[in-house]
């Protein structure tokens, strides 16, 4: 289980981004997290993905408490929780080709990049001619598929999707959500879907919680 308990994050300016939130997701469960803009959902996502250290509270992954965050966190633990960013353009290194982007986790883990690519590209709908292009040479939707493939290349147990379809048109949203649903089901991922869209969350997720309710639990 991926669990964040009593998570508080304050910024240097004094702003309290997350005032104390408790959240838990089990593998194989899709959890929808609703909340208005600026309420701290993305900061919570970054803490759950072990990228940002909470000022208070505890994150644990499969019962293992996390004490160090960011590059100091154990790589194996980081790979177990993947964050899918709202903007794939920002999340992809502009100097890396799509092929390098998708196979980066494999190269870090000293696995065979070609095998990883052959497995993941068809699953997320990445056509071979896109692989040698740079991020600015593909559409945002295609780039988001590459980011999904990169996340799956880590063989995660949990995927935190921070408004992954917010910047796309309806048909692209549907395609991306289908890809996410299929891969999450196939791999038995615990999925946290952060969204503004109440209807989407209620239709697509097994459980839905409001950000305000998470805070109220503390």
């Amino acid at each position: 289980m991926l669990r964040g308990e009593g998570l508080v994050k304050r910024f240097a300016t004094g702003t309290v981004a997350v005032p104390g939130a408790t959240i838990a997701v089990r593998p194989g469960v899709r959890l929808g997290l609703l909340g208005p803009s600026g309420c701290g959902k993305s900061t919570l996502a970054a803490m759950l993905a072990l990228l940002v250290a909470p000022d208070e509270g505890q994150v644990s992954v499969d019962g293992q408490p996390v004490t160090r965050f960011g590059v100091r966190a154990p790589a194996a633990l980081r790979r177990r929780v993947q964050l899918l960013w709202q903007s794939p353009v920002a999340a992809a290194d502009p100097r890396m080709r799509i092929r390098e982007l998708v196979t980066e986790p494999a190269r870090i883990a000293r696995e065979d990049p070609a095998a990883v690519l052959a497995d993941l590209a068809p699953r997320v709908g990445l056509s071979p001619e896109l692989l040698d292009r740079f991020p600015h040479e593909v559409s945002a939707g295609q780039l988001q598929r590459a980011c999904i493939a990169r996340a799956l290349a880590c063989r995660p147990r949990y995927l935190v999707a921070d408004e992954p379809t917010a910047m796309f048109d309806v048909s692209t949203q549907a395609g991306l959500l289908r890809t996410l649903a299929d891969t999450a089901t196939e791999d038995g991922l615990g999925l946290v879907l952060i969204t503004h869209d109440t209807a989407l969350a209620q239709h697509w997720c097994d459980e839905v919680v409001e950000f305000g309710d998470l805070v109220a639990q503390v």
Partner: protein
Amino acid sequence: MKTPLDVLRRGDTDVASGTMQRAPATRTPPARRPRRRLPNPLRGRWGVLVAATVLGLLVLGALGADGLRPAADLRSDLDQVLLPPSWDHPLGTDAAGRDLLTLILHAMRVSFTVAALAALLAVLLGGAIGIVAGVVGGAVDAVIMRVVDFLMSQNHLLFSLLIAVLAFPVAGGAGAVMLAVGLTHWTSMARILRSEVLTLRERPFFHAAIGVGAGRVHLVRRHLLPHLAPSAALGFVLLAPHAIFHEAALSFLGLGLPPDNPSLGTLVAAGQQALLKGGWWLVLFPGLVIVIASMCVGALGDWWRARSQPRWRSELEL
């Protein structure tokens, strides 16, 4: 035929009544006279082409010095002392009767090599220090940047003189110049690359790479260095002509290359002594080569800077 949109754009119709009216005359402020600037012959596309061609010719001349004018021609000839430019000696002869063109070709090779190596040392040292400061952060960053602030607040020519004096017995003239220039010019490179690292560290793709398990070495190698390379290369391009000036200055002061190993700096220094005897060409031509090479490299650097990172324009102060 005018469309309604054209009419609205022109503003010459009373839209409410649909009647055509002449737009009221508006007073346009008098045009400001543009500020006069000295013309720069190496600006624009043609300027860049000219700069690249001239620099290429200079480098080719330096590389092919032995073929064009063998070093054997550098023997002293007391019958040919201080001859002005002529058909036999296009740039004249020096006080020892040596052909100045031959001297300059050989001196360019020495000066360009010393300048390139000095600039490379400064970029590598400054780059490594800047990246360490930016990546490690915290107290390490604070200490490094205070040292950089201190060094940048001092006169770097004095530091380079001190380093040249200390290094001269060990590293020789060329080595002393390289060390003196390289060890006094890494600070601006360190500061710039550190600031770039701090910016890159906050970019989502950097966090995404951390998320997929990247360690510090991987992050530097795959996500920082490719982004920093254009800045580092540009720093090299801008430092190289500056290093030529320093080589000239140190050689002029007797701390650089020895007189028997001609560099552009030693030629200017020797020419200065012959100036009182009327040997103007001994200062003019080596000095012109320094100025032309510096202008060409500077023009190419400006062009590259504008192409790669426009915001650099005011940051690298040498």
